[in-house]
């Protein structure tokens, strides 16, 4: 059986990036939920702004993940 090192390396790179991005998305979702709870506990006139900014952060992480996946496919195929 011949092991294709180049193909294996490609899959390894995809796996590392994939796991990293999944953890990053998990963190961004957790942060958003935590801030929503905090903003309700200590409510100020800026609470909606803070919640919205944290939501934007989550969206930015999701967009980044999409961009990184596209870039990886371009690079590896």
């Amino acid at each position: 059986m011949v092991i294709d090192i180049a193909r294996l390396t490609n899959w390894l790179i995809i796996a590392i990036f994939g796991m990293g991005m999944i953890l990053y998305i998990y963190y961004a979702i957790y942060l958003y939920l935590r801030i929503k709870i905090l903003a309700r506990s200590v409510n100020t006139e800026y609470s909606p702004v803070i919640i919205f900014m944290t939501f934007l952060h989550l969206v930015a992480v999701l967009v980044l993940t999409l961009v990184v996946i596209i870039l990886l496919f371009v690079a590896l195929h």
Partner: protein
Amino acid sequence: MTARVQKLREKLGSLSRSLMLGSILVFPRFRLAKQEADERIVLVVRKHPVVLLWRIVLAVLELLLGFFIIYILTSGVLGVFGHISKTISLSLYLINLMFFVTTLWTSYLTWYYDLVIVTTTRIVDMDFKNILAMRWTEARLAKIEDVTIGAAGLLSALFDMGNLFLQTAGSRDEFEIRNIPRPLKVQSIIMELVSSLRRR
């Protein structure tokens, strides 16, 4: 109660700062989730803005270090990972930039929500180690026995910064907030609130 609150408001009015970036907020437009009907928030204390500034400086250093490491690894200068394509290195640069945004935003949030809230009846301490690990402690103002302040170091002297410790009766929990601005003033406000509550 209203007369006492009005008296305090007149006395402390000049201390108030901006809600988003201020460290000492007097009678801010805050609302606690479990706030009693006649309870008013008198004082909200955060860490000194210098603490936030320091975190921003560290985040910028991390960003630059990240760019440097990615450049070294992907440009083939050291002869390692020289084969990595420009598209993958672009991904790494983008991820590093997003980490920077995340660090900045979480630093601000940690600073923003790391509060000691003094109301007309109780004191609440929201303590953050990081944004994902917090501790919420509260005690009745009447139970406060000692209000201690401490300061050490050049930064404390330069920026009038110090640490505040509150000891409550019958509890081993100690309220602690580090690097607050104008600790003497904050100590006197809390002591005044406690003593006026005891006089009633």
